[in-house]
């Protein structure tokens, strides 16, 4: 039952292949029906039979000449009748084929097999229509000039004719009848072959990444498809241009914000160096920490814009251990401000395929987070090793950690732990996760030894290191 339903769904589902096949089948059926209609209308081949007047005159002559020898007459007429009807092969259904009746006076001297005895024309010139036992016949009646011999040639008219024609003209109709049910297979096959360029275009479109707005590579030479591919490419170009404009606008805006933020910082810090009362100091600290947050947010927005924009840049071989050493050295200034120690443990050299900028933002965001949530004089431990054919980077802090229920959600942009007391943008982990994903890696959060957050990043290794 399920199988049937699935079959039906495949058939009922509108596809171009199905549509083309339906059109073909309908056209063939219409043509076939037309042929049958013409046969029915013209009375089929029987008309040629009914018009063979010379033959009928020959029959009359024979009947007259052999009137004295009834047996011989009967035999001879049978032979001529069979010869006349030879091409109208109706096998045993004689009442469907053309038929011949010969009278001499009121005596029926000959009748074809299956011919009803009462079938006798009135003798009008040309063809006439005779009804007998509910069957309509076209009939021609000839009267001898020399004697009282009368001949009626008749053929049943209507749908029965079709069968006669099919039977007699089988060599002509048979291929059509046989081919009709078999037509779908070659039709389906040929349409599939004809549609191959179409599928190729569809595959290329399906294989694209969400940020891939480059024009389609495959441009088929076929006019219909080429026009479509051209319009798709034109659309892609427009979309990518508008995306570029939007991104560069956000990047410019973020960029332009940096100078005033720097100015605010420098002025506030210079003011901090002056003699201030405790209230002023507190207010200045508020300004500075807001300035820090704004600066960090602007930096992260730029990172996000860039990670969206550089999704297609080539990946190169990178020594992750050296990169970590550089980044941690650069971040050690931030750490030492709060008296936090950074530690790096590299078990062995690790090489990954990646984009430097993106991996830097991954490392920076994880380590900055760890520093931010560390208690004063805490330790942030970073380790790098190879495990199960992947690069394994871990960042451990001694902060409050993240409740297991929230560990998935903290990767959402702008999501922040409601219990959190530290200021933050809620973008750091989202950026790190997006960077890891663009490298075919992943980030998992867990519990560090002795409390705190453990972030585990897995990245694919270079070829040859796996």
């Amino acid at each position: 039952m399920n199988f049937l339903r699935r079959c039906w769904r495949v058939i009922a589902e509108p596809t171009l292949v199905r549509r083309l096949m339906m059109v073909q089948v309908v056209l063939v059926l219409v043509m076939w029906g037309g042929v049958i209609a013409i046969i029915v209308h013209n009375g089929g081949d029987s008309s040629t039979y009914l018009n063979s007047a010379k033959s009928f005159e020959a029959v009359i002559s024979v009947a007259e000449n052999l009137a004295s020898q009834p047996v011989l007459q009967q035999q001879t007429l049978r032979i001529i009748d069979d010869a006349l009807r030879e091409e109208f092969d109706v096998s045993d259904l004689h009442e469907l084929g053309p038929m011949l009746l010969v009278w001499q006076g009121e005596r029926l001297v000959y009748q074809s097999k299956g011919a009803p005895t009462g079938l006798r024309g009135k003798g009008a010139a040309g063809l006439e229509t005779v009804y007998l036992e509910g069957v309509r016949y076209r009939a021609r009646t000839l009267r001898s000039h020399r004697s009282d011999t009368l001949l009626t040639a008749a053929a049943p008219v209507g749908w029965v004719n079709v069968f006669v024609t099919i039977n007699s003209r089988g060599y002509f109709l048979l291929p059509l009848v046989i081919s009709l049910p078999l037509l779908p297979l070659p039709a389906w096959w040929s349409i599939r072959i004809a549609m191959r360029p179409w599928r190729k275009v569809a595959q290329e479109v399906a294989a694209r990444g969400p940020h891939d707005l480059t024009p389609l590579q495959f441009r088929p030479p076929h006019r219909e498809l080429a026009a479509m591919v051209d319009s798709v490419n034109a659309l892609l170009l427009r979309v990518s241009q508008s995306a570029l404009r939007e991104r560069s606008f956000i990047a410019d805006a973020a960029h332009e914000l940096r100078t005033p933020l720097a100015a605010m910082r420098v002025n506030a810090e210079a003011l901090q160096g002056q003699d201030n009362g405790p209230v002023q100091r507190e207010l200045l600290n508020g300004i500075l920490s807001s300035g820090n947050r704004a600066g960090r947010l602007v930096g992260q927005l730029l990172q996000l814009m860039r990670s969206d924009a550089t999704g297609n840049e080539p990946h190169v071989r990178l020594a992750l251990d050296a990169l970590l050493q550089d980044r941690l050295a650069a971040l050690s200034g931030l750490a030492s401000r709060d008296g936090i120690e950074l530690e790096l443990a590299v078990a062995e050299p690790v090489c990954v395929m990646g984009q430097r900028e993106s991996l830097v933002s991954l490392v920076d965001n994880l380590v900055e987070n760890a520093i931010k949530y560390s208690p004063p004089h805490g330790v942030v431990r970073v380790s790098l090793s190879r495990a199960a054919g992947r690069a394994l980077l871990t960042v451990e802090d001694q902060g409050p950690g993240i409740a297991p229920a929230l560990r998935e959600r903290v990767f959402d942009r702008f999501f922040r732990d409601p219990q959190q007391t530290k200021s933050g943008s809620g973008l750091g982990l989202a950026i790190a996760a997006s960077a890891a994903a663009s490298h075919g890696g992943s980030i998992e959060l867990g519990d560090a030894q002795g409390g705190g957050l453990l972030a585990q990043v897995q990245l694919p290794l270079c070829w040859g290191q796996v």
Partner: protein
Amino acid sequence: MKILLIEDDLDLGNGVRIALSEQGMDVVWVRTLDDASRSLAHDGCDLVLLDLGLPDGDGLTLLAQLRRNPVQGDSGGLPVLILSARDTLDDRLAGLDRGADDYLVKPFVLAELLSRVRALARRSYGFDGESIEVRGLVLHAPTRRVSVGGRAVELTASEYALLKMLMMRTDRVLTRRVLEEQTLPGSQTNASNTLDVHMANLRRKIGEGYIRTVRGIGYVIDQQARGGAA
């Protein structure tokens, strides 16, 4: 010390000028490349703070010009610190490749700016034959002599090179890789162990409390002593 500050933003330029003046530095602040060239040609300076996006052009062109045709009194080593909002790796490399000595991304922390300005000044004075001094540890570049609290210390060439690098960039962690590459060329095999051995010897000679290890990352000499640091 005379500092030429090239920054077109009024608030930022004024803030930096005041902050640096507070530290006893002599700051000349200009807002265009034209004024900067004129000031460099007439008055010269000891250090340049350079913004990149200026109203009459890109700061990098001034930098290239400065490196091609050193102004009067500059032997080609005039320290240039770029202050820019452009933060990509490519931007930084472009700045450093054109001959900048350092690159600081806006918004920066004032303490970091001061630290880097001091480090640059020290580096350039070091080349000029001045001494570098950190909490009683003195390195005299021309004579390659090192003393701790007035007591002379004998160092090997490698130990001296390591100490000089760290002292010229106080407060900044130098990675093990950089130290290995810069001071121990040729020792490809077991460079890591060699570095550890040299550092241990150096520490034994100058005493504890100067060189701080950042485990797995590198070494740093802090300008101010750090409580509880190894």
